[in-house]
């Protein structure tokens, strides 16, 4: 694993972000970043796609809230009771792709890309659920619309990131040099 030392602005390396939207935002920040003040005496930043807290925690909260909304909409309970019941159900439901699909994928392809496959399968399951709710008359259709809209925007961001790949690589080299 490559690391960058004593360059705080390297936190904005697009390579330290996973999703296209986050990579694009990171690239914009990196272009605008001057040599940032270093609050520590020595800093080691590994270049790893899953390193950024804001991105990963933000997506986790978004996915969890979306799942809770779908469970609340599906439960035949009054709102406060439905929310209380939906929170643990949503947490357990999000474990299913990992527990059920994870061992099967690992058995079939071994260690390596299995986490990527589980990740894609989980996102596809959420997209299918969102497609179901988006055409319903439930209030959850707004949540589903937002979920699908974010996926579309991320898809568009992926195209922009691909078009900018040369500039991104140059900016990263300048920062990590």
């Amino acid at each position, binding site marked *: *694993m490559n690391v960058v030392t004593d360059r705080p602005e390297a936190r904005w390396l697009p390579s330290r972000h996973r999703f296209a939207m986050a990579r694009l935002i990171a690239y914009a920040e990196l272009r605008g970043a001057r040599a940032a003040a270093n609050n520590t005496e020595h800093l*080691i930043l590994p270049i790893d796609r899953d390193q950024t807290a804001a991105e990963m925690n933000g997506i986790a909260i978004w996915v969890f809230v979306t799942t809770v909304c779908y469970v609340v909409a599906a439960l035949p309970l009054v709102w406060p009771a439905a929310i209380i019941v939906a929170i643990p159900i949503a947490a*357990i439901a999000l474990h299913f792709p*990992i527990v059920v699909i994870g061992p099967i994928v690992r058995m079939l392809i071994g260690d390596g890309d299995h986490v990527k496959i589980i990740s894609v399968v989980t996102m596809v399951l959420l997209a299918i659920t969102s497609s179901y709710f988006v055409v319903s008359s439930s209030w959850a259709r707004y949540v589903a619309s937002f979920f699908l809209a974010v996926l579309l925007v991320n898809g568009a961001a992926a195209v922009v990131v691909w078009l900018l790949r040369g500039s991104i690589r140059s900016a990263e080299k300048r920062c990590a040099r």
Partner: protein
Amino acid sequence: MTQSAWWRRFSVRGVVWRQLLRFAILTVPPWIEPIVMAFWSAFFLLWGPGRRGVMRNLKVIKPGSSAIANFFRCYRVFWNYAWTIADNVRFKELRTIPDWEFIGWNHFQAMQASNGAILLTAHMGSYDLGAHLFSETSTRRIVMVRAPEEDPQTREFEEHHGAEGLRIEFNTRATELALDLLETVRDGAIVAIQGDRVTGSISTLPATFFGKPVNVPAGPFALALAARVPIYPVFVVRVGRRRYRLVTSRPIEITRSRNRDDDFARAVAQWMTELEDVVRGYWYQWFTFEPYWPEAAA
């Protein structure tokens, strides 16, 4: 396997949870990780003795705090513990390195350059991860002394899945280990010891922590005196997702005088001051699940 042995696998220190953690590290997509962490941290609040131990310790660290506030603080301790052990397993299994920030870099470099030193730390943040990582990057050999896992199957699992390059010694064979460590330090190695908690029947020194009397392990101080090497207080604190701060304080020098008890008392007092400052600031990362103070146990 007997019925009781089968059930022991599911006890809080049982091997099943280590296996489950390893499975999760190898299988969970990173963007679902926070949800999984939040769920399992809440699940482990069902562990009554651990929860009560943390809450009683918090009562001493934060005088006048309410039980309900300490319950939520206890969740924060469990949440941080879950992340630190996960980061440790992730490093061992996938070689994933977190971000590192250094405070007291000059002291850390001095320790690396010294001809033998004691690295004194506490059950805080990811001490395991720090030791494993720096055993691979340090120019000095690092020997870590720690208490063994209570459960034999868990011990076997940890030995099987341990990182290479780090020598771990268990503090159960006190006399022969003391001689081994003395020779190791004299050879220029760094011996990492946790100096906040007494486990088993090891020799102790009296100290004061948050204004109350406690006992701390005597080993690190006796070793420093015998080998004539400094003690460096080092704390590995988790400051965010896959982000750690390594705080190295000024060294504790044990000078020999005619009164050995006074020599030890001065060194222990300096250590307790450093420890208290860090625990006060990062109480949510002091992973002591048993009541620490005798009256807290009552």
